[in-house]
C-alpha cells in the first residue's frame, strides 16, 4: 500500500512536470468527459435505462468523445511523433473534428 502511495505521488509529480500544456488541456477535457459518463451511468443505475436508445446515445457519445480525444492526445504527443510520420498535429485535429461530426450526427439521430 505504501509503495502504491509513493508511486502514485511520483506519477502525479512527474505528470505535471513533463506534460506539454496542450496535452494537459486535452487531459482536462477527457476527465470532464469521463465524469459525464460516470454521472450518466449512476443515473441509469438509479432510474433505469428507459428509453434505452437515449441512454445509449448519451453514453456512447461520452465514450466516443473520450476515445477520440485520446486519439488526438496520442497523435499530438511529441513523444509519439516517430510513430505517426504522416500525421501532423493539424491533421490529427482535423481527423478529430471529422470523427466527432459523424459521431454526433449519429447520436442526434439515435436520441429519438
Amino acid at each position, binding site marked *: 500500500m505504501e509503495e502504491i502511495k*509513493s*508511486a502514485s505521488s*511520483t506519477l502525479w509529480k*512527474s505528470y505535471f512536470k513533463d506534460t506539454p500544456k496542450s496535452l494537459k488541456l486535452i487531459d482536462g477535457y477527457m476527465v470532464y468527459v469521463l465524469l459525464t459518463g460516470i454521472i450518466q451511468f449512476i443515473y441509469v443505475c438509479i432510474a433505469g435505462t428507459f428509453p434505452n436508445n437515449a441512454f445509449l446515445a448519451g453514453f456512447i457519445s461520452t465514450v466516443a468523445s473520450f*476515445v477520440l480525444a*485520446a486519439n488526438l492526445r496520442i497523435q499530438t504527443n511529441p513523444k509519439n511523433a516517430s510513430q505517426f510520420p504522416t500525421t501532423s498535429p493539424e491533421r490529427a485535429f482535423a*481527423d478529430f473534428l471529422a*470523427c466527432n461530426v*459523424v*459521431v454526433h450526427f449519429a447520436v442526434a439521430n439515435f436520441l429519438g
Partner: protein
Amino acid sequence: MSAASSSTIARVLKPTILILIAVVAISSRLFSIIRFESVIHEFDPWFNYRTTQHLVKNGFYDFWNWFDEKSWYPLGRVVGGTVYPGIMVTSALIHNVLHFFNFPVDIRNVCVFLAPMFSGLTAFSAYLLTKELKDSSAGLLAAAFLGVAPGYISRSVAGSYDNEGIAIFLLVFTFYLWIKAVKTGSAFFGLWTALFYFYMVSAWGGYVFITNLVPLHAFTLLLMGRYSNRLYVSYSTFYAVGTLLSMQVPFVGFQPTRTSEHMAGLGVFGLLQLYAFAELVRGYVSPKQFRTLLKGGIAAVSAVAVVGLTLLSLSGVIAPFTGRFYSLYDTGYAKIHIPIIASVSEHQPTAWTAFFFDLQMLIFLFPAGVYLCFKELKDEHVFIILYSVFASYFAGVMVRLMLTLTPVVCVSAAIAYSTLLDTYLEKSEHVLAANLKGTQSPNVISDTPAEAAGSKAAGNSMKKAAAKTSTKTPAKTAEPEINKSQSKTKRFPIFNWDSRAMVVMLLTWFLFMFAWHCTYVTSGSYSSPSIVLASRQQDGSQVIIDDFREAYYWLRKNTKEDAKVLAWWDYGYQMAGMANITTLVDNNTWNNTHIATVGKAMATSEEVSYQVLRQHDVDYVLILFGGVIGYSGDDINKFLWMVRIAEGVYPNDVKETNFFTPRGEYKVDHDATPTMKNSLMYKMSYYRFAELYGGNAVDHVRNARMPSEGPTLSVLEEAYTTENWLVRIYKVKDLDILGRNLKDATAFDKGKVRKVSALKRK
C-alpha cells in the same frame, strides 16, 4: 514488370488492366441475360426487388414505416424494421441519380445489373487490399482472380439481386480500410472503416464476421506483444464510431449491446483502453514503481469485472447466442433443434469437392499464400492469416459461407502466384550472378537481406545445392571444388532460361485452365435464373420452360385483389413479387408456427386441412409438381420437410413415420402409405395425373408407376395447371349451400349430375 520499378508504361497499364478486369468480371456474369432475359432470379431477390420498387415509388419514409399486410397473412410483416435495407437503398439511389440526369432506366434493370457492377468494384478493392500486403502486381492478380472466381460469381450473376451482391464488396473494402488504418494509425481511415462497416451492417447479416474478425485481429496483436499507438487509434475509432452507427439500422437495433456475438468487440475495446492507460503511466514512473501500480490496477479492474459480469448475467442482460449461430459451431445442432434452418440447402455443410469446383487452382495456392504471410508477418499479414483460418472453418460448415472465404483465397493465392512469378521472371541476371558468387563463398550469401523475397528464396535453394556439392567433395582442394560447383550450377541451375520458361509456361497454362474452368462453371451451374428453366431436346434445340411465370401471371390476372394463396414458404417471395397476391408464409421464415400450420394443411387429410384452410381465409392453394417433365425440386420431394416442421408444432396431427412404408421407404406409387395417399399434398400432386397418360402414368422424378385410379378431391377444385404441369393451382371450395359436408356433396355431384369439367386439359 515489377511495380517497384514502375515506369510511365506501368502507370498507364495498371488502370487499363483494372478496367479490363472489371469488364471481364461484369461480362462473365451476363450469361443468364443473354440466354434468357433481364429477369430477377430465384427467391430472395424477388423480395428485395419488390421492396425496392416500393422504395422508388413511395419514397424513403414510407419504406421505413411500411407495414406489409400482403405477407404472413393474417399477421403481416413490419418490413422497415426487419430488412437489411442496404441493397434497396443503393439501387434506389442509383435509379434516382440516373433519372436526375435524364437516363430513363427501369428500376428492374438497375436491380438486375447491380451485382455485376459491384463485382467490378470488388475486384478493385481486392487490388487495394493485396497491394497493402505485397505489391501492386499481386494486387492485379488478386483482382483478376476475384473477378472471375466461381465462389463469388455464384451469388452475383446478373439478376441475382441479393444482399451478398454488394456485401462482398463491402467486406473486402472494409478490410482494406481496416488494414490501412492499422498501418498508418490514422483516425481518418478508422472513421472510414466504421462508415463502411455501417454500410455493411445495413446490407447483410454477415457483418458479424467483421464484428468479430477485427477485434480478434487487435487482440492477437496484443497477445503477440505488438501493441502500438497506431492500433489504439485505429481500433478505438473503428469500434466507438462503428458500433454507434450499426445501431442506427433498425433491424440490428440494440443487439450490439446485448448479444454475445458482439461482445468480443467490446471486450477488446476495454482491454485496449486499459493497456493504453498503462502505457501512459509507464512513461511517467520508474519501472519498479510501474510494476506495483500495475499489480494494484489489475487487482482493482478484475474485481470490478467479476462483479459486473456476475450482475449482468444474473439479471439476464446478456442474451445467449442465436440458433443460426449455434449451427455454425455444432453442425448437428440445426438438424436436431431447428428443422427450418436445416431444410435450407445453402445451410448444409460443404462437400469437399465444392472447394475445388468454386475455386479451382486457387485452393492449391491458398496455403502457399498463407505460408508467405507467415514469412512476412507484419500486422496486416496477421490479419490475413486469421481471416483465412476462420473463413475456411465457416466455409466448411455452411455452403453459403464459401462466399466469405473466396476473397481471402484470391488474395493469398495472388500473393503466392506473384511470388512465384517474381522468382522466375525477375532479376534473372542479378540472382544468377549472386548465386555464382555464393557458391564460391557459401557463407556470404545468407547475409544479403536487401534482396527481394523472391531472390532470397532462390538464394536459399542455390545455397543448398552448393552445400550438397561441398559435402560430396570434402577431401579435395579448394580450387577444383570451386570449379566443380560452378560447373554443377551451370548444369543444374533453376535459373537457366529453360527451367524458367518451363515454370512460367506451366503457370500460364494453369491460368488458362483457371479461366476456362471459371467460365465453364459460371455458364453451366450459376447462370440459371431458376424461374425460367431450359432443357434441350434430342435434336439439340432448346426448350424454354416458363411455367412459373405462366402460373403467377394467371394468379395476377384471374384472382381477386386480396386473394390469399397458400403455398410452401419457398415460393412466398416469388408469389408476392410476381403475382401480387397475399401469401401466408414466405422466405423470411420468422414465424415457425405459421410455417408449421401450412405444413399441417399439406400433410393432413382433406377434412383436417379444410379446417385449417378455412381458418386462414385461404382462397387458393399452389403447389409445384415435377412428375411430368422430371423437375426434381418439386413439392413431393420437399414434402418430408413440411412433415417434419409440422410435426415439431403439431405432433398429434402429423407423424413423420406414417409417411414411410413398413420397409422404411418414401413411396408415391401403389406402395404409398394410407397417410401419404390421403394427404392433401399427394392428392393435389397426382389429381388427374393418371388421366394424362390414359391410366399408365409414370412419375418421371421418382420413377414410379402410378396407380391407374388417381386420387379424388372434394374440398378443392382444380383452378389452373400450367403447360408442363409444373405449377398446379387449386381453388378452395366454399361451404356447401345445402349444409352437407363437401365429401358427400362431391360424391353426389359425381353420381347424379355429370358435371362437364371446365378445366383446361393438356
